[in-house]
């Protein structure tokens, strides 16, 4: 598939009534047919980005392009975009069938065609047989699925989903994750999906934008973002991680927890202060003598697939460990890890600088 940019944000800033800035010079590109996720904590501006794309609100500064055309002033009803709203926004005076049919009726689609497409959309969201129900007679999760059906039935170029699975139980949620992903691939529609659940984001996306306080912190594939978080915020937000202060002694050598370790990072200044990230599942427990770091187990929880331990080293750094092996609380153990497991983050590095640095590794012959 050729890369085709369908939506482009160019330094878009949004503020409400001259209050604080909600979006701060946000720029990104959305390619046709991919599954994107906006990920970030509550209030970071995820819904605002969707509202800008859908046309419910206007950018204070900057340009929004759709298929190469500037569309800042195109009204919402003229945009090839459909939204699944965070509060569902189903029409209470219409039943399930008519809610889903609403968009098609506006477009004056033939009745037989409407019937076929509405039934298909309802079948997709597992709501066949609920056509005649009133919205008040549906549960929260069922309403959410009606909202999804109402958006996909129009087969737009882009679908915006604002936390569409938040009201579902774990089983249905996982099922819908698979089905949404499957549907997206089948229809080839571009999905922009909002969530603050990082596991959901990692599982579903082609590309993730991590947002914080109105700024895109990092964008990339789930593995990029998980393996190479750009800063403390992203590392902390995406998955659980151990973040400790450290110092880059020279290329391939870093100091933290009072020791010097071999690593795979290079191109930083000598003796530069950095943050070190090690994922809990990359830590392996061994005996006190064999470990690279010596820690004491402070607490332990059984999480089903693994044990989760919180340990402290002598410098009182906290280490979160995921291990299939069991330890005992109060026991002194050693932790082992590969040089590749150490991820070095420069303090205050921008995404561009970060990308450039990663490229330079590859030029230097290092492949992941």
């Amino acid at each position: 598939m050729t890369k085709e940019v369908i939506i482009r944000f160019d330094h878009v800033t949004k503020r409400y009534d001259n209050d604080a800035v909600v979006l701060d010079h946000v720029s990104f590109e959305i390619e046709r047919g991919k599954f994107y996720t906006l990920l970030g904590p509550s209030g970071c501006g995820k819904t605002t980005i969707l509202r800008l794309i859908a046309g419910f609100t206007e950018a204070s500064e900057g340009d929004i392009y759709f298929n190469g055309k500037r569309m800042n002033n195109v009204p919402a009803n003229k945009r090839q975009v459909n939204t699944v709203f965070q509060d569902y926004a189903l029409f209470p005076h219409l039943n399930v069938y008519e809610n889903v049919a609403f968009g098609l009726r506006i477009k004056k689609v033939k009745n037989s065609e409407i019937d076929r497409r509405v039934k298909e959309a309802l079948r997709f969201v597992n709501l066949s047989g609920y056509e005649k129900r009133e919205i008040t007679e549906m549960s929260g999760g069922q309403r959410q699925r009606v909202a999804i059906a109402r958006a996909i039935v129009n087969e737009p170029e882009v679908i915006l989903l604002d936390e569409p699975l938040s009201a579902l139980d774990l089983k249905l949620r996982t099922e819908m994750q698979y089905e949404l992903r499957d549907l997206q691939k089948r229809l080839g529609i571009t999905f922009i999906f909002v969530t603050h659940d990082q596991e959901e984001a990692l599982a579903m996306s082609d590309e993730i934008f991590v947002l914080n306080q109105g700024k895109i912190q990092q964008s990339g594939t789930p593995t990029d973002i998980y393996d190479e978080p750009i800063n403390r915020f992203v590392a902390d937000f995406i998955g659980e991680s151990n973040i400790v202060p450290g110092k880059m002694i020279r290329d391939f050598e870093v100091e933290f927890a009072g020791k010097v370790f071999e690593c795979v990072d290079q191109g930083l200044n000598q003796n530069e202060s950095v943050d070190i990230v090690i994922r809990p599942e990359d830590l392996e427990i061994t005996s006190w003598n064999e470990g690279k770091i010596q820690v004491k187990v402070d607490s332990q929880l059984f999480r089903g697939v693994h044990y989760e331990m919180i340990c402290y080293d002598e410098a009182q750094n906290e280490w979160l460990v995921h291990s299939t092996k069991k330890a005992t609380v109060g026991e002194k153990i050693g932790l082992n890890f590969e040089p590749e497991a150490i991820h070095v983050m420069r303090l205050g590095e921008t995404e561009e600088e970060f990308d450039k640095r990663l490229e330079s590794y590859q030029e230097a012959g290092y492949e992941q």
Partner: protein
Amino acid sequence: MKKKSVWPRVYLAFIFIVLYAPIFYLMFYSFNSGGTMNNFEGFTLEWYKELFGDKRLLIIVLNTIIIALLSSAISTIIGVLGALAIVYMRKKTAKQALLSFNNVLIVSPDVIIGASFLILFTMAGIKLGFTSVLLSHIAFSIPIVVIMVLPKLQEMSSSLIDAARDLGAGHWDVLSKVVLPYISPGVFAGFFMALTYSLDDFAVTFFVTGNGFSTLSVEIYSLARRGISLNINALSTLLFLFTIILVAGYYFIMQRNSRSAGAGVQK
């Protein structure tokens, strides 16, 4: 079961008796063949016959109904538009000002409204009669409609409108397919309120009816002043029954609507 005090019920019964007794007294004597309201001599429908034989009175009844229907229909349209304008007004201060004006109109005494309409119509050179009564009824009904429609509009989540626009609806579709159906209980309530206000309005109408034109409440007043005739009783009885039917109809419609209402606020 806990034994409840009987006094609240006695009190309620007392209040209702005080309120309804005069009406039933009036209705009772409308069937009196004696011709006075002092002693009941025998049952008769004579007064009703006389009533229906009275061409002038029938025309007045017709006038009253036409005025009520027309004024409530027109004021409902204007009132709904007004409520929409108030809700979707950008400026907070202008919004507050409009709302306050609206509320002042509702609480201000009918006599003052009537007198000011009289002055307005004579200054504007509008002949007192059908038009002046209709205009004044429309005018005092609009704030009532606005008050009945506003809460529904305010309770409606703005994301419903966003959703409609998102699905391709233009302004007219949004209004006719989403907003109006949503607020229809409020619109009905406003219409019926306007209807009853118009039907039984005396004070304002009294000021602006000319010589040739009259409505029921004004007519009953002048009949009552002229002296006792059981015609009035018969007329009042019919009017009372009509109001009961209106109220019953109103509740019926509300019941039907309440099923779909209240669905907009859930998350």
